[in-house]
């Protein structure tokens, strides 16, 4: 036993070392950084660094730009996240349906945006969102609606970013849903049909519960990714314009850290974002376990009813 655990430790050591050096150490260093005023002057001479305690965090919570960025980010994740998951599930169902032909072709098409370079995509989307010649506004015009200045109007810039992000990202979740769908045993559907379940009921009572773990995974991955919104606005609306309506937390961190070299402040932003993401993840886990428990007790109740009957 002793030998075994020693061997285990030996095998684990390289991985632990890598995690320590590449993850724990930098994380600790940046936590340390966030309680200093490390900035451009400190680059010259480290004696210019002052320990400032929580004042970076204090300044951050008193900074209206930070709250703006956090609101923008939550708005983006709150709107874009569920939308991505829903579209991903819908397209997964379509791609996976028995009647669909050329399944792999459609899968590839829907997945293509995920692997396309965002910079190239952004050039195309700038045309899509263009006020006068844009595809979207021409559609609006055909429907008799007033044109919208998608990227120039503070009210519509973020929805425009959401459209781009959903289009770009839903393919990834779709593939995962397809895998989840394929792992549902056909017998369950058969049993449901024998019990007289219609299409919709099969979907509600078989597909959705069986996809539970997939939902959890997709939800967390999407939320974590979307809360770290950066590249989309960075290429579409540089500087988080118009009127900071597309400024995200990570963009703010990048600006503070690498444009102005307020590394202490940027590190504080990073930690606050970390906490937000951790919270979002915990909430999703809680929701999922609550759902599982509810489902389990419902199943138990059903069994009891069956037994009585």
């Amino acid at each position: 036993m002793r030998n075994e655990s020693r061997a285990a430790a030996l095998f684990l050591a390289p991985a632990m070392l890598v995690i320590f050096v590449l993850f724990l150490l930098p994380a600790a260093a940046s936590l340390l950084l966030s309680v200093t005023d490390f900035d451009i002057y400190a680059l010259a001479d480290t004696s210019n660094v002052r320990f400032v305690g929580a004042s970076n965090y204090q300044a951050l919570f008193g900074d209206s730009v930070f709250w703006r960025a956090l609101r923008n980010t939550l708005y983006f994740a709150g709107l874009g996240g569920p939308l991505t998951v829903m579209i991903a599930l819908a397209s997964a169902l379509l791609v996976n349906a028995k009647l669909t032909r050329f399944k792999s072709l459609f899968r590839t098409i829907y997945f293509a945006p995920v692997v396309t370079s965002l910079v190239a995509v952004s050039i195309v989307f700038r045309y899509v969102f263009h006020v006068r010649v844009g595809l979207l506004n021409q559609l609006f015009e055909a429907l008799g609606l007033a044109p919208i200045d998608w990227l120039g109007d503070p009210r519509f810039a973020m929805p425009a970013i959401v459209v781009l992000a959903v289009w770009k990202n839903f393919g990834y979740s779709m593939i995962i849903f397809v895998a989840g769908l394929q792992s549902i045993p056909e017998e369950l559907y058969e049993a449901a049909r024998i019990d007289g379940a219609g299409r919709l009921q099969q979907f509600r009572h078989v597909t959705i519960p069986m996809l539970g773990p997939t939902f959890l995974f997709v939800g967390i991955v999407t939320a974590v990714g979307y809360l770290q919104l950066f590249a989309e606005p960075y290429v579409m609306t540089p500087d988080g314009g118009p009127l900071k309506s597309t400024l995200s937390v990570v963009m703010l961190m990048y600006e503070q850290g690498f444009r102005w070299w307020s590394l202490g402040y940027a590190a504080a932003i990073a930690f606050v974002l970390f906490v937000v993401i951790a919270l979002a993840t915990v909430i999703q886990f809680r929701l999922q376990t609550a759902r599982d428990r509810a489902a389990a007790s419902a199943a138990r109740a059903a069994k009891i009813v069956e037994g009585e009957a």
Partner: protein
Amino acid sequence: MRLLAPLLALLLLTCSSRQSGSELTFWALGREGEIVAQMIPEFERRNPGIDVRIQQIPWTAAHEKMLTAYVGESTPDLAQVGNTWIAEFQAINALDDLTERAARSASVDRNDYFGGVWETNVIDGRVFGIPWYVDTRVLFYRTDLLAAAGFQEVPRTWSEWRTALGRLSTKGRYGILLPTDEWPQPAILAMQAGSKLVDEQKGIGTFREPEFLKGFDFYVQLFRDGYAPLYSRTQVANRYLQFAQGDFAMMITGPWEVGEFRDRIPAAQQNAWMTAPLPTPDGQPWPGLSFAGGSSLAIFRQSEKKEEAWKLIEFLSEPAQQVRFFELMKNLPARKSAWAAPILRDDRHLAAFRQQLERVAPLPRVPECERLAVLLAEYGERAIRTQATTAQVAAALDEKANQILTKRRWMLARKAERP
């Protein structure tokens, strides 16, 4: 293990290439790097011992890369630096003091440089960069529209300017385009009104002072009176076309735009646009102040080849080379004598720049300059797009600026304590 050997070899190689160093490394930014390469053979011919290696750095990454290079102790021998960065690099002690070299030099003659431009390189009386080329802002305007509005001459004072803009702004047309998210226009107008924007010695913002308020008011009022449209940079799809169509009759912009205007404005309007030095607040000498931008050449303190680097600076500063650089790149020379060359002297659109360059001043020479400039644009936009009074917005701007300058004040206080 199989990976390790090539990696080690690579490491050794990169180390040795840094050590070998008979080369002079010169970081030049963007297209300047491409162009200056054509001028180097002449320098190498004249200085047989020196082998110049140019590294082209994209503008967008340059600032970041130089700071990282400084931290990683891998700065080049000399580099092109935007002159608003000088204070920052000087603050981190990255640049070599060029005061003595410049004073001794036979070819770098301080008096041949535009005063305001030279000043951008001077921190606490010491010289840290030699101007390479200059950039400033002047007025671009439609001669025909202005004539139709009853002005044969371009306005020279603020009140004439407002009158002209008032007459030019009719039915969906605007007198002037001032993109709401750009800082140069509000900065220039405030500087014209006498504001220094920042008190460099005290490390405080001066955005509550009457001088700043005068310029800021003038700027914001242009929007409130409908003389300037509420367009940000990205909202103007094609400024050249719109200028040609007469959507706006004036713009305040820089020298690179001369070439763009010549290329992009339709032939029919090519004779209908002109440049002019900026108007000035009433009762003050004309032209009104503009800011001194552009790039300088600076030597890094860690360089071991400062002599050679200085030789290259002297070479690129020669009036003949300045003219050649203009021919190749269309960047305006920093030296007055270079402007005597026919190609510059006889250019009708450049005359305004020549005049303006006599009346330019540096932006605040503090490391936080760029950050404050972005802030100015942000608060300018806030004043334009909301109902708040300019005084309220300026007070908020002042507070924010002073927050950013906190560390600078601490540094200044510490320096005063132990000189």
